[in-house]
């Protein structure tokens, strides 16, 4: 786990005190709303439809039990007893009162957390693979570099007023679980001919109203020069990114309009200036930070395999959970557990304060005090002994957190939508709830296999609909809600952007439309090993369109 040094502690304490004073002056009338609004946004405080919303940063999705308990405490004492985990691996509270914000930020600071840079035109919370440091398929644990990026980007004076917000994702595995090709900058661990580990740097990806897949700007940046290279990109963006139109201000537009080679030339010129300077990462400093992320001293395990088929006969629900929610661990006898926040009929990503306490207790008892938030709005216990899986499952059942649906059709990403969000055009959560009810039957979910549905309530795409195998986009039409369906999106290393396949649907017809697509896929697939996205790629758009809309 990362820990604050005296610099972190000082800047968080300083900012917390500063914002407390700003809130006090706003409440007294000394500050106007026009003066206060940019200040509150710099501290993660939005005003939504019904109330304020506070977005708290969870650095690269990593939490200790103590921190999770603090998040539960805040939900219980200052909010309505729950929180919403987001696609930036953060947590949002939907009902805080302005007068309580200073004390909430004090509470967060006491566990080395804050809400700084969770809004505004700055570098946002760096995200990563939820299985970082645990996954069997990992080249390198990306968390030390993510931590270095956190330190570098926090209150960076040069990048506090960028043309637009800026998002960085990093993965140390070849299988991309962090959607790095849909970030402003994506970093993927790479090995060069000499066997050294460095980083592929991808630039200009993003979702929103102009979805784009990032382009490879450098296939190998050595670790020691990574900060210098990233600073070079940021400088080019800060200098040339458009400020005349917020819809064209992201770096993806700059890369698209100027061309990768032009941007690359500018970045390389800047890099030539700064390379070898103060941003060079000393190996002793990298080692010092890496030590914070040293793997736990794993207790040897005699149980190194679980017979899932046998367990499924004894207890079908446990078998499903083993089948879907367990990820292979680099350490023999251990696994990473995905704790689903997608109960049938629930709001995706929501967890009550009691559920947060339960997960914190489980992390402390069974996962070396570590927790992760996934960008797909679930939680992870990264280091669980196989011998403890049954106990963990039983505790999750009692907390209504044991849905064995990871990566299945009911494991949807879903934005807050028009039920909460001031920007949304249509509701998202009720759509997710109805789809999960329609496909609630476990046998049906198993039959369908891996299928990622992602739902956004507006074109800003917080629900990542562009990269859903099936994407759903809510739009406003004639005062009502209409839902467009896209097919073929993929957030992984096989990145693709989904295409709208025809006219939109009324809300009540969306689950039926999804069912038509699913039934067509099952009828056409070349065996159960061929997933929905694979079948879509093989067959193309036209037959799916015909299945959904009939022959023209």
């Amino acid at each position, binding site marked *: 786990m990362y820990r604050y040094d005296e610099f972190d502690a000082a800047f968080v304490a300083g900012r917390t005190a500063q914002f407390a004073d700003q809130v006090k002056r*706003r*409440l007294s*009338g000394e500050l*106007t*709303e026009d003066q206060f609004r940019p200040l509150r946004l710099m501290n993660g405080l939005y*005003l*939504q*439809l*019904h*109330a*304020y919303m506070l977005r708290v940063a969870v650095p690269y999705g990593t939490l200790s039990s103590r921190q999770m308990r603090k998040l539960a405490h805040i939900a219980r004492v200052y909010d*309505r007893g*729950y929180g919403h985990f987001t696609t930036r691996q953060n947590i949002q509270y939907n*009902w805080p*009162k*302005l*007068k309580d914000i200073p004390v909430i930020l004090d509470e967060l600071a006491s566990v080395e957390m804050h809400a700084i840079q969770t809004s505004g035109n700055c570098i946002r919370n760096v995200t990563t693979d939820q299985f970082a440091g645990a996954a069997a398929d990992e080249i390198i644990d990306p968390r030390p570099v993510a931590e270095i990026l956190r330190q570098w980007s926090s209150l960076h004076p040069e990048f506090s007023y960028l043309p637009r917000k800026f998002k960085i994702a990093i993965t140390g595995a070849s299988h991309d679980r962090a959607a790095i090709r849909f970030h402003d900058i994506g970093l993927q661990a790479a090995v060069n001919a000499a066997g050294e580990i460095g980083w592929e740097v991808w630039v200009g990806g993003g979702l929103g109203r102009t979805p784009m897949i990032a382009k490879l700007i450098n296939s190998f940046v050595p670790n020691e020069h990574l900060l210098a290279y990233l600073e070079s990109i940021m400088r080019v963006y800060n200098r040339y990114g458009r400020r005349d139109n917020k819809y064209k201000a992201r770096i993806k537009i700059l890369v698209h309009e100027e061309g990768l080679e032009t941007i690359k030339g500018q970045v390389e010129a800047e890099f030539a200036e700064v390379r070898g300077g103060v941003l060079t990462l000393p190996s002793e400093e990298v080692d010092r930070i890496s030590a914070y992320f040293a793997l736990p001293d794993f207790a040897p395990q005699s149980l190194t395999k679980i017979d899932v088929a046998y367990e499924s006969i004894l207890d079908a629900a446990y078998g499903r959970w083993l089948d879907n929610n367990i990820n292979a661990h680099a350490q023999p006898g251990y696994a990473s557990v995905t704790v689903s926040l997608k*109960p049938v*009929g*629930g*709001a995706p990503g*929501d967890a*009550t304060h009691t559920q947060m306490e339960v997960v914190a207790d489980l992390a402390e008892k069974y996962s070396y005090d570590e927790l992760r938030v996934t960008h797909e709005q679930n939680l992870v216990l990264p280091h669980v002994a196989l011998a403890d899986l049954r106990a963990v499952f039983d505790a999750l059942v009692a907390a*209504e957190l044991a849905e064995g649906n990871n990566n299945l059709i009911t494991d949807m990403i879903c934005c807050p939508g*028009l*039920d*909460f969000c*001031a920007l*949304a055009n249509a*509701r998202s*959560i*009720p759509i997710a*709830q109805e789809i999960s009810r329609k496909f609630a039957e476990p046998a049906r979910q198993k039959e369908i296999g891996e299928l990622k549905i992602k739902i956004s309530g507006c074109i800003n795409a917080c629900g990542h609909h562009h990269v859903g195998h099936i994407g759903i986009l809510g739009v*406003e039409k004639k*005062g*009502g*809600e209409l839902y467009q369906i896209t097919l073929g999106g993929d957030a992984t290393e096989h990145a693709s952007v989904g295409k709208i396949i025809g006219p939109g649907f009324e809300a009540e017809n969306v689950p039926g439309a999804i069912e038509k697509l699913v039934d067509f896929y099952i009828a056409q697939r070349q065996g159960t090993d061929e997933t929905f996205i694979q079948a879509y790629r093989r067959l193309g758009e036209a037959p799916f369109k015909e299945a959904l809309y009939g022959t023209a």
Partner: protein
Amino acid sequence: MSKEILTGNELTSGAAVYLSATGEWVEPLQSARLFSKEEVAERDAALAATKAGGRVISLEIEEVDEVDGQIVPKRLRERIRAAGPTAPLTLNGQAYDRQHLGEDGHVSI
């Protein structure tokens, strides 16, 4: 014939509020003052006074219909704002209540 209402969010709680006929900012949509097209001057004066007071923020003019004696905003967004989220709570199946004014949240113009 559609009319207009004034709405915003109260500063301390963030709760959605409506300008009433008596010049107070209140929670119930049905207590909202209806402005006809001929009352633009009064409407704008109320907006300006509220903005100057600074206790109600994110001010908006909303178009509404009167249906069977009830005020019904034309926009779905505003209907949800008035009533609270429509999506049920994960565990107990109840809808979330809308935000309410705190004891320090009562505002007049």
